[in-house]
């Protein structure tokens, strides 16, 4: 394997892992606050279709991204109202949200299927992008990928170093105690859910405006679900989410490369590779029960109301 091929694999790995990274970061914050939102797939699809329609109609990619984020937040707000406001079962509500998002995006995007659009183009930073192996991966991406780097750093910093992160973690571990301290549990959780929605919307718009600039039904292809698994198997640790997302990206690329050089394995088996590889590696990493218990939000998925 020559250097160019590796450079290209790394580059594609980051591009493929980015939507997963974005959704998973949002879900991480959401779950850390104690809310399990299974609606990621639906919110992503809705973000993708809204982003595409807006960008196609107005010609502004950034307006598309912004409204995709708003669309994800809107759906997540719906989830928050039902699951947090009315204390409905979070699993059922999240599943309903995904089914709703799939249907809604198909309905809204029917007229836009197969239309061409020029999406975000890679911007190579001078000199830096010429570094062997990692130059292209880190410094010749489109703006949304750069944004994902920044958002990763932001989430890591907030969750690990700031008081806001501490509050989110406290609310997810013991909402009763947090409430007794005067922390606004439901507001923190609602905001965390909406952050998750915004990230899912952004991830959706990345798919339809940068990764493959077009709209197709169900174009997320289960990435929302993989992101959910990522968060769990990453034991709610932000660096492992990054690792898992790029691992998924890498495995996706490997299966394309393998087909390219004519390895005679059923392409269906190879297509399973990213899902299997990601989950196997993260399961192996999360075997340490103590560490997993330490990072897991104890009251994940449990409804909570003040005054008990």
């Amino acid at each position: 394997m020559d250097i160019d091929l590796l450079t290209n694999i790394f580059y594609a790995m980051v591009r493929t892992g980015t939507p997963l990274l974005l959704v998973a970061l949002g879900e991480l914050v959401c779950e850390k606050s104690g809310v399990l939102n299974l609606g990621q797939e639906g919110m992503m699809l809705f973000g993708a279709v809204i982003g595409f329609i807006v960008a196609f109609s107005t010609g502004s990619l950034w307006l598309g991204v912004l409204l995709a984020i708003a669309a994800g937040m809107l759906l997540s707000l719906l989830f928050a109202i039902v699951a947090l406001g009315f204390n409905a079962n979070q699993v059922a509500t999240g599943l309903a949200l995904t089914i709703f998002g799939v249907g809604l995006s198909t309905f809204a995007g029917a007229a836009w299927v197969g239309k061409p659009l020029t999406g975000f183009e890679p911007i190579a930073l001078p000199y830096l992008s010429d570094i062997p192996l990692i130059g292209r991966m880190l410094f010749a991406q489109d703006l949304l990928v750069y944004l994902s780097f920044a958002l990763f750093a932001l989430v890591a910093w907030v969750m690990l170093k700031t008081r806001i992160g501490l509050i989110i973690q406290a609310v997810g571990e013991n909402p009763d105690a947090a409430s007794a301290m005067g922390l606004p549990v439901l507001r923190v959780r609602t905001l965390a859910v909406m952050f998750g929605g915004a990230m899912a919307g952004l991830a959706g718009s990345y798919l339809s405006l940068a990764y493959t600039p077009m709209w197709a039904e169900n174009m997320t292809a289960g990435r929302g679900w993989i992101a959910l698994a990522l968060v769990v198997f990453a034991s709610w640790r932000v660096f492992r989410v990054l690792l898992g997302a790029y691992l998924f990206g890498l495995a996706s690329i490997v299966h394309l490369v393998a087909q390219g050089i004519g390895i005679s394995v059923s392409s269906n088996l190879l297509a399973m590779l990213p899902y299997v590889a990601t989950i196997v590696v993260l399961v192996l990493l999360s075997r340490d029960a103590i560490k997993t218990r330490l990072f897991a939000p104890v009251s994940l998925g449990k409804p909570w109301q003040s005054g008990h």
Partner: protein
Amino acid sequence: MSVSPESLRLQMRGISKRYPGCLANDRIDLNIQPGEIHALLGENGAGKSTLMKIIYGVTQPDSGEIVWRGKPVKMRDPAMARSLGIGMVFQHFSLFETLTVAENIALAMGRAAGTPKQLEGRIREVSQRYGMALEPERLVHSLSIGERQRVEIVRCLMQDIELLILDEPTSVLTPQEADELFATLRRLAAEGCSILFISHKLGEVRALCHGATVLRGGKVSGHCVPRDCSDLELARLMVGDAEGLESTYAKVQGGEHFLQVNELSWENADPFGTSLRAINLEVRSGEIVGIAGVAGNGQDELLAMLSGEQLLHKRDAASIRFAGEPVANLRPDARRKLGLAFVPAERLGHGAVPDMSLSDNALLTAFQQGLVSNGLIKRNKVVAFAEEIIRRFAVKTPDAETPAGSLSGGNLQKFILGREIMQKPKLLVAAHPTWGVDVGAAAAIHRALIALRDAGAAILVISEDLDELFQICDRIGALSSGKLSALTDTPSTCQVEVGRWMAGEFGANPSPIDQAAANPAPLS
């Protein structure tokens, strides 16, 4: 009390609070002076919890007035209470296990916490000043219960505090740890901080408190200076003239060994749980054996082993034996067939199914009492059985079809205990048999246990209440960090000695190896 209201730290006038179906507080008056350690005494259900929630702003009174340092205030929420200088240490700690000590304290302090460095310094300063050793960087889940309580108290002391409310603080401590806590509280009071000490343990109230307000049935039944009162006088104020307050029961020797636990060890996979270490124990037919210990030292694990909720491998089956028969690999129903009855620590979820009626709950463990024939439930017999329990154990409930979850804790406890005792077991394992039960009912439960013992059953009681264990048990031991002390005849030991066992000091001069084993290194 002839003190002008202005000089009082806290005055409560005519506080009333009604919950659906009960008047929790009925025109309660309470005065606390600066630097006073004031006891709030009362049985479970007397209204102590409600009153303290009102002081701390968790709930609002229906009527009455709170006067803080001479000014009437309306306590809206805990944040307001804290800003006035009121701190509270709850019975069930409100700590975050996955955060460090410093992070827990930072969360409660808000922006006043400053940088992590400054905060750590201040935590060390406060904890040293009041003699409560704490390491700010340790994770809370690796702390003992006593240490967690220190975190709660230090958290209150970090702010300018003028009234500290402690809800049953010694219920989770060994007698020695309680003494250390009292020293801290006395120092605090000497500096002018008022302390409201909520308890039902008369001895410690008399040792610590300057004044006391006694509640009974939601009303103030008396004010007194605890030091000048006898335990019996205080108890009369708390419970009225209930019988059985001073019952003593004859100690007996028992007959054949029924339950034998032999070198029982179990590695707990739960990092927050306790592993059992080579437990040896026998209970004879016709005796009551008591196991003391601070919560979290292996009681839950030992109970799960004995009841069959946690099974061992077949090759270890002989580590638990009923009348010589190996049972450690048998499920709970098989063990019940051999004569086991079991009262678990958790009433709801383990002892009873909350949403099911009392009669259905009765059937759940008593199916071998002729209530089922050919797989069909004999409904009449089940109801009759449940009604018999309700009658004999004076369970307060509308009828046998009431859901278990709607009974008060004490009533449900009586029902569960009654259900087990009525099955005439050969071995009864009971966890915290009178936890949350009022004095009258506790005396009734004690009498029932003694009667069962005298009828020839082997009984094992696991409890945190040393007074209770000394009252009813013929032999006693203590669990500490998953190890069990040797069992000793109750009359030949004393609470101080059992307290040492609870702290892990089993021998007269514990060897360094034992000490190291009793204080395992914290999880990293």
